[in-house]
């Protein structure tokens, strides 16, 4: 399948990209870089709402021409693609408008392409059982908080990869490699990333509340599969300490694909484990075989 990386992952969240590229082929998922791509439009919804339909439709039309489905590792991209697909199915006039534009490039959107998030690839296409047997050792039962991120859960009426009740796919996957998961009060809350253009201060205060709950919950670490959430939770801990004055705001944070790769015996550098900004050292020590 095509991988459409979006903006954040290929521009700065290299650990996510590295760990996907390391893990997916070893689980039998062949990934091909998508050509001729553009921003999905989610961060620009407020600037031009139609762009947020045209841009993902263009991406899906390119995938259609290439004859492959898409995996979109960013929650925001996955939302843009699936919401556009939903709208273009419901609204004929929108479909006509979009296709009139795509036609000028020799493209056409017909709704054939499936769009996956890595959590769906791993849980649905690969499966928990295959993952359990593909790992070379079980990680120790450390307690991890799984953070799905808003757009993996909402808006539910268009169908999202994760549901709000019961166990998350991400939790089942985390348990499949030996780690423990536990409910936490802010599991479906916002990381604050989208507030950054308006106010970095407001965004940091928001993620500080999330980090506080992870610490209070006695978790050994946090795992997510969204580059924006990761950028906030992993990358903004020092800023959160400075802004709130709370020195306890510190939690080791990993992409799930990094943890999975570790359990599969993949080299740590290949998983970008030297790129995490949160203090992962002591937990990593325990996670190593």
């Amino acid at each position, binding site marked *: 399948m095509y991988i459409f990386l979006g*903006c954040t992952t290929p521009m700065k969240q290299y650990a996510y990209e590295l760990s996907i590229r390391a893990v997916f082929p070893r689980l039998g998922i062949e990934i091909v870089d998508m050509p001729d791509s553009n921003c999905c439009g989610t961060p620009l919804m407020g600037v031009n709402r139609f762009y947020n339909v045209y841009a993902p439709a263009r991406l899906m039309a390119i995938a259609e021409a290439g004859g492959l489905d898409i995996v979109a590792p960013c929650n925001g991209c996955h939302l843009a693609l699936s919401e556009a697909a939903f709208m273009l199915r419901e609204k004929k006039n929108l479909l006509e408008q979009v296709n009139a534009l795509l036609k*000028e490039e020799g493209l056409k959107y017909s709704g054939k392409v499936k769009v996956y998030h890595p959590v769906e690839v791993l849980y649905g296409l690969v499966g928990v059982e295959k993952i359990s047997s593909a790992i070379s050792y079980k990680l120790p039962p450390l307690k991890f908080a799984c953070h799905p991120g808003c757009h993996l859960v909402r808006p539910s009426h268009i169908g999202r990869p994760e549901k709000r009740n019961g166990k998350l796919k991400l939790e089942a996957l985390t348990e499949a490699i030996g780690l423990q998961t536990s409910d936490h009060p802010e599991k479906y809350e916002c990381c604050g990333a989208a*507030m950054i253009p308006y106010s970095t201060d407001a965004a940091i205060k928001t993620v500080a509340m999330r980090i506080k709950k992870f610490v209070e919950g006695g978790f050994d670490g946090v795992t997510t599969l969204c580059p924006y959430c990761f950028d906030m939770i992993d990358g903004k801990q020092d800023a959160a300490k400075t802004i709130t004055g709370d020195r306890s705001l510190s939690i080791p944070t990993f992409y799930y694909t990094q943890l999975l790769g570790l359990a599969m015996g993949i080299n740590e550098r290949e998983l970008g484990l030297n790129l995490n900004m949160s203090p992962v050292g002591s937990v990593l020590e325990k996670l190593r075989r």
Partner: protein
Amino acid sequence: MQTYAQTDILEAVRKVIGDQKPEACYQCMKCTSGCPAAKVSDYRPHLMVILTKAGLAEEVMQSGIIWACSMCLKCKEYCPQDVAPFDVVTALKNVAISRGYKPPEMLVGMANSVLDYGYIMDKPMTITTTEFEEVSRESLGLPDIAHPKDIEKFKKFVSSFGYRRLS
């Protein structure tokens, strides 16, 4: 300053793509009670909706507070009236842009970058590892990012539906 109800804004909000139904709001404030942006700023989704509904959104657009929304979509998910406050505010942002109100500086850069590179950022960043080594996509062995193959054409297409360079 005298304030007049401006029903044209309400009309413009209705026309933007989305599920917004400001007229259905009965001000239960469920949206605001769960809003992450309301906890850290003056943003209150129920006020955005009622002011839009009443035709008083001009000041809201002027103040810039609409840009505080964190896009978590909780208000849209939980509204008992299917008002979709998120979509009301997104529509207000679109109307604000078309009327020349300035969005946050960083968003201006992101929006303009799409016209030049196809993405909200112009180029990949150099980052520092835990061993204080500087790394780039290239040094990590990652392939080049695929941009729109003909950026001029891409710019032409997106301009055709009113996506303009912001200043």
